[in-house]
């Protein structure tokens, strides 16, 4: 009996000795899946995180620069006020006012080169600069939600280390515009009338979304870089370009400017921000 028991033990150990390297080798294939059984078992991917956002307000002065403009560029100055319910979720408002508005080279070229005659009378002011009839973005107000799925750190030249987060934002934008007023319809001035080239105010409602990076230089201050899209239709040049013909893609006869002349534009801008978070100290996760 004793020999039999010893034999069984020997056989079991032999099997164990042979299988041990095989089992151990299989676990080698997945380097990231460490079979943790110690105190780190079940622990989160990152611990002792500075929770820069959770339970804090962020007030950030911003400067935004429009991109890929055809006729007029705008620089908007404003601010962003946000409250982060969680470290990964915030609600807030971004608002900015178009302070600087400059014409593009195309606008200047049209203003100086284009002939003023009967063929262009409805689209170019007879005496004024063409830039004066191009549309302007005067303000933007956007209630929005910010989602912060990624946070980490960045090393620059192995010298400077900054905590960084990447976020997505989305909301509804109320965009104040000044664009050429309607003309050519009953009760409206003729589109060849110089008065018809004056700009009228309008508010466009558009979705807004984008992504950004925040670089935390301390618990109080952060530097932000953000991309924002504001797709909506507007008549940027003040032309009568749509409304009749095949699919309505030809000018009206006689000329008429209305909302059909507003063409879709995927408006884009880059924003830089200086964030101030309150209260001044951030919590630290477990």
């Amino acid at each position: 009996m004793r020999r039999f028991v010893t034999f069984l033990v020997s056989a079991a150990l032999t099997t164990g000795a042979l299988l041990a390297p095989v089992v151990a080798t299989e676990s080698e294939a997945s380097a990231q899946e460490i079979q943790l059984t110690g105190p780190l078992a079940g622990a989160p991917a990152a611990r002792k995180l500075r929770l820069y956002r959770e339970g804090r307000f962020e007030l950030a002065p911003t400067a935004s620069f429009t991109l890929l403009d055809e006729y007029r560029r705008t620089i908007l100055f404003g601010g962003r006020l946000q409250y982060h319910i969680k470290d990964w979720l915030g609600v807030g408002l971004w608002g900015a006012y178009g302070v600087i508005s400059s014409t593009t080279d195309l606008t200047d070229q049209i203003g100086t080169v284009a002939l003023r005659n009967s063929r262009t009378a409805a689209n170019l002011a007879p005496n004024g600069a063409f830039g004066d009839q191009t549309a302007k973005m005067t303000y933007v107000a956007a209630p929005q939600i910010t989602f912060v799925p990624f946070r980490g750190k960045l090393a620059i030249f192995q010298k400077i280390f900054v905590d960084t987060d990447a976020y997505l934002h989305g909301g509804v934008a109320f965009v104040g515009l000044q664009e050429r007023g309607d003309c050519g319809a009953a009760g409206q001035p003729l589109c060849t009338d110089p008065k018809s080239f004056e700009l009228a105010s309008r508010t466009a409602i558009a979705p807004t979304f984008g992504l950004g990076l925040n670089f935390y230089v301390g618990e109080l201050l952060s530097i932000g870089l953000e991309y924002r899209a504001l797709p909506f239709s507007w008549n940027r040049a003040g032309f009568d370009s749509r409304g009749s013909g095949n699919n309505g893609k030809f000018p009206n006869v006689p000329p008429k400017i209305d909302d059909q002349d507003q063409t879709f534009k995927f408006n884009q801008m880059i924003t830089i921000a200086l964030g101030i978070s309150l209260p001044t100290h951030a919590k630290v996760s477990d």
Partner: protein
Amino acid sequence: MDQARPAGSSPVGYKRRAPRSAVRIFTCALALGAGLSFALSAPSAYAQKRGGAKPKPPATGAAAGGEIELDAPAAGQPPAAGAGGTVELDQPAAATPATPPPAPAGEGGGICEIDPSACPKQADIKAAQNKTINAEIYAVQQIYALRARRFEVNPYWAFGLNDQFVSHPGPGLAANYYISNVLAVGVNGTLYAGLNGDSDFNFENRRATRVAVPLNEYQWAAALNFTYVPMYGKFAGFSDFIFHYDAYIVGGVGAISTRPIPVIDPDNRNFSFEPKVAFNAGLGLRIFLNRWFAATLEVRDYIYNEKLENTNPLIGQTQQQLQDKNNWFGENRLTNNVQAQVGLSIFLPFSWEYRLPK
């Protein structure tokens, strides 16, 4: 197991007599083998390879401490030769003394014994303490994805960021070799032919203002580049996983083949593609999905001198003048083709050995 012990025998004596010798030794050897197999296989579970840890030499004698014996002999007695009942993990050879003989007084052993004049003195040690050492310790060692001496193959899709008038999308391929972890030399090429798109905006603008904007289309671009990687970091995604990324700047020189799209006189003008010298500079972001596979996003500005179509009025020109190619081109203008390049990076070889410890 005491009940199996012969009556009147002490535990030590029982061990020293060691019955059932062959089977018992085999059993214990297998147990040790199993344990050692696990122990030796354990490092394979680490995510990072261990660097430089050499196996510890076997301790000798009782002075080594921590010695494990399954069946230790009685204190002061050598194991009984041929008894076959003792298995020890760290037992020195029977002929090996328990401790090495002490060095003679006044000799340091080693170099002091061979050449007393070279034996370090107290003053030498003090001088050595003050000596500046170039310790290769970096802020971050064993970076997740090393680039040094690896090839990067980067297929991408390019699309213009400032092409309101004519879009220039196209596939491209970049290949870089990293001379060091932060510096690479490489080439890239983009094919635009057949993919240029003249937007509705051009037509509508011409129709409304009777002003023609000269347009150009691209055929291909190629460049020799240098890449510098000053920034890297890592992100925790959803507090659940971690991914690494780096940011780089890139610049170089090459050529871009372009031609005007005839707008002013499409009936007579038919332009051919011509390569022009193009300088480029850009920024890129690379997100590592594993140690050899990454997603890339790059914004690069290709700067070149573009030949535009002649926009002078055609009125009054003869047919011969209209067909004269010398009259087709107008001004040259420094042009910026800013394009985004979204792609994937594959690093070769796939694996490497870390030089620095973690």
